[in-house]
């Protein structure tokens, strides 16, 4: 299932070395990456991704008051807790049949926009870019650094750095100018978040039915003034990233193969359109398509669907290499959706989570993560969709659908146009992201600063609309509701690093079943019952190695760049990590790996 074509010609006898990175630094959660690397042919021949943490949200939420779900599920993630709260509220609003006031939707959108700007910035500039900084490139590809020193940065007029190496220096941990500025920006943008949602990470003002945030002119002015303070930083970030990634393709021919997968992207949509959304299941396709980030499943570059109902019905949670009991023989909670379509036993509405702690066995079960897949109705495949680290799938899906048309953001033919206003130093700027040729490491990373710009631009629109409502006296932010005796609901949203869904079943006014599916299970999943590897495994497995170091001083930077390009659920990092693996065994095996995949 590895999708990178094998480089069959001119192969040398394999020299396989087991290398592992566990714990991986600069990430949230307990992720381990275990690989077999063929140093003779300089490629990764096998990869297993494992997670060693179980907490049991879907277990202990049973029997609780459904209104508590947003407060509880926020605690799933210490960096995108608000995305969970928001998604939970979307699911609850469907179950309760309540539509929050429009102003509440604007406030929620503004909170989420601030979250995207904050989180993508700190992740890209303080973690991802460390893998591309001067110190790291020097330690892994000294020839490339020498070339960067001789290469003028094409967009120097925007970001102010003369050569590509100057940009890389600005990303050095601690000393680098951009590195330090990014930390400051991450604090300003978190303040913007707190103005809308009270607290970061776990918001305090978000409720099913709306928000408790007091809408006053200064609520929005305080946000706007902070946003304008970071708008030039965003323009510069896009330019710097483009310069560095373009340079990598040029300096290391074949780098497009690093982290390349078949285009299998999922996006569940973000930023509700307050004029259209009513949270009814029956109309979900309409209001889903009206979102300001359009949902979609993309296979081999084609849009399979942007209907949230199709997306919902295609969800499958598979086992195969995970530490759980199967639930196929349990009674289903939901046999049909509200439109009468059959719901699969492997759908989150029907899942039962029974943990079975056991030994880690790479030939058997090796992870606490399950394997979410999307069932393609036309081909019958269970697709290991990835999220492209979030932004790649969001931009790709929005561009292919061509539905977003706003004053600041417009889906164009094959791309997205984003206009940011004049800032302190830089003029009004229009950026254009184009659908790339590959779904690979560099394009996942490149999409990220463009989405920061996207979120900032959308925030301007939400601010204008919210201010307009407020000034006309419309200040309602919460709508009351009753919890029904029996109901089901689903919420679709985008956590910063990709797709997020919450599925809820209510019986006797209590939670009978609740399953949140954040992006990391999609991306970090182990091999499923069909043997299909998860996206990290698939992207790393088969990728070429460009690092010049041999097995003894190998840092694994190309592998780490790939894993990080997916934005594994990470908090802030302030230091450099160079992922030197421990050599477990050295095996010389001319046949091993030749038939792999």
């Amino acid at each position: 299932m590895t999708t990178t074509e094998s480089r069959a010609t001119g192969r040398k006898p394999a020299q396989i070395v087991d290398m592992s990175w566990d714990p991986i630094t600069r990430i949230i959660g307990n992720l381990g990456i275990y690989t077999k690397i063929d140093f003779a042919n300089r490629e990764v021949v096998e990869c297993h991704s494992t997670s060693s943490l179980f907490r049991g949200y879907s277990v202990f939420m049973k029997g609780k008051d459904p209104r508590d779900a947003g407060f509880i599920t926020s605690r799933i993630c210490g960096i995108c807790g608000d995305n969970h709260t928001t998604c939970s509220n979307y699911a609850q609003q469907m179950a309760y049949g309540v539509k929050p006031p429009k102003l509440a939707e604007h406030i929620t959108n503004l909170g989420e926009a601030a979250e995207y700007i904050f989180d993508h910035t700190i992740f890209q500039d303080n973690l991802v870019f460390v893998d591309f900084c001067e110190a790291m490139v020097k330690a892994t590809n000294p020839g490339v650094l020498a070339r960067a020193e001789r290469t003028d940065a094409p967009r120097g007029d925007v970001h102010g750095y003369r050569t590509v190496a100057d940009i890389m220096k600005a990303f050095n941990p601690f000393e680098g100018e951009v590195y330090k500025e990014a930390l400051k920006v991450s604090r300003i943008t978190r303040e913007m978040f707190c103005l809308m949602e009270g607290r970061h990470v776990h918001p305090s003002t978000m409720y099913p039915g709306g928000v408790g945030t007091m809408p006053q002119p200064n609520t929005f002015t305080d946000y706007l003034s902070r946003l304008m303070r970071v708008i030039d930083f965003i323009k510069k970030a896009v330019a710097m990233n483009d310069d560095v990634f373009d340079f990598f393709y040029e300096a290391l021919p074949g780098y497009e193969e690093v982290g390349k997968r078949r285009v299998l992207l999922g996006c569940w949509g973000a930023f509700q359109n307050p004029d259209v959304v009513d949270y009814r299941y029956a109309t979900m396709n309409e209001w889903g398509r009206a979102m300001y980030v359009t949902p979609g499943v993309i296979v081999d570059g084609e849009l399979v669907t942007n209907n949230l109902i199709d997306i919902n019905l295609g969800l499958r949670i598979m086992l195969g290499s995970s530490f759980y009991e199967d639930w196929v023989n349990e009674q289903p909670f939901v046999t049909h959706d509200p439109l009468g379509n059959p719901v699969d036993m492997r759908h989150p509405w029907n899942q039962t989570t029974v943990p079975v702690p056991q030994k880690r066995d790479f030939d058997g079960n090796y992870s606490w993560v399950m394997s979410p897949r999307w069932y393609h109705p036309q081909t019958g495949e269970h697709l290991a969709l990835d999220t492209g680290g979030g932004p790649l799938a969001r931009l790709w899906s929005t561009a292919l659908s061509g539905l977003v048309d706003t004053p600041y953001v417009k889906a164009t033919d094959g791309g997205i146009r984003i206009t940011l206003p004049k800032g302190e130093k830089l003029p009004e700027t229009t950026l254009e992201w184009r659908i790339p040729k590959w779904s690979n490491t560099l394009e996942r990373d490149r999409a990220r600063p463009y989405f920061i710009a996207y979120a900032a631009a959308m925030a301007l629109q939400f601010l204008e609309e919210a201010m307009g409502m407020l000034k006309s006296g419309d200040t309602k932010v919460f709508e009351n509701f009753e919890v029904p005796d029996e109901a089901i609901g689903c919420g679709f949203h985008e956590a910063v690093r990709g797709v997020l869904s919450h599925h809820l079943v209510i019986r006797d006014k209590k939670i009978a079943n609740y399953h949140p599916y954040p992006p990391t299970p999609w991306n970090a999943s182990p091999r499923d019952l069909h043997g299909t590897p998860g996206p990290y495994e698939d992207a790393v497995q088969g990728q070429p190695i460009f690092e010049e170091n041999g097995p003894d001083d190998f840092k694994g930077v190309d592998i780490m760049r790939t894993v990080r390009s997916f934005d594994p659920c990470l908090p802030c990092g302030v230091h450099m990590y160079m992922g030197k693996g421990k050599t477990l065994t050295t095996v010389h095996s001319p046949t091993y790996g030749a038939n792999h995949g």
Partner: protein
Amino acid sequence: MTTQSGTTEAKASNGFDEITILWISEGMSCDGDTVSLTAAGQPSIEDVVLGLIPGLPKVNLVNKVLSPSLGGEDFLAPYRAAARGELEPFILVIEGSIPNQNIIEGDGYWTSFGNDPDTGEPQTLNSWIDQLAPRAWAVVAAGTCATFGGIHAMAGNPTGCMGLADYLGWEFKSRSGLPVVNVPGCPIQPENFMETLVWVLQHAAGTAPPPPLDHMLRPQWLFGKTVHEGCDRAAYYEQADFAKDYNSPKCQVKVGCWGPVVNCNVPKRGWMAGVGGCPNVGGICIGCTMPSFPDAFMPFMDEPPGGTLSTLLVKPYGAVVRRLRGLTNDMVNHEPKWRHNKRRLTSGYDPHWRA
């Protein structure tokens, strides 16, 4: 707490010039405490690590997220050295709740931190704590999961998890003689945590006495008052003026706020740089700093059980106060009568008042 300006009394004790912080976030956590920590500006974690705060020892921070190491065994090296007794002194910080490994039949684990070098299998968090806590100069629990168990320890949880003091025993003392230092919050309020850490570090340097802790081992100066006592909606309570839903700027006790009985300073301090918070900005207090969180506070959006009685009792008093204040408010909303354009000064001016 006693503080004497300029005293050198505490400094007389033998302090350390250098100390290592071994931070393990592999408890059952969301890592939200680490993320919160990076929001702190008073002081920031960079300030502490770079030596910008006077009176602290040199700090070597070893945190998975913030580590300059090479990862894997290179990253784990200081932890292994500390477990062997070869790295002293160190402060052990635990983030996340501690699972009960004893309920697992056979092999397996709820959470691990690196691999056991002998077996190659995941090394449990519990085994790390067993090895490190007895050797630690101080032990700090970051966030409500580590202090009291928190959200993952709620009723119906499958992991039997608990707070660090439950695991080590509430009578546990680290080598400095300090019990576990608990900084609750889900997540920690950024400055609350950094301030506590700085005090512990000053104590390690011999420049400060031990931080004063309450009976639940929380810093007294941070958790000694209630949310209500610092809330800018508290005056509405006093006047028995209660929000009926979340559209209102008034006191939220009747829509689920537990502020009157929760120990926390967030409404007063704000969330970061004074911005944000909970009831002060329209969020009900769900008691996330408390030992009984979350179970005792659920369902969160309902009025707390004691709320009905106390809001009933305050009603007649509050109504009278509100009426009287309304009259006074009306009065102070009028300009004094001497502000006019007549040919006579009526302000009470007396040029000879000194005489």
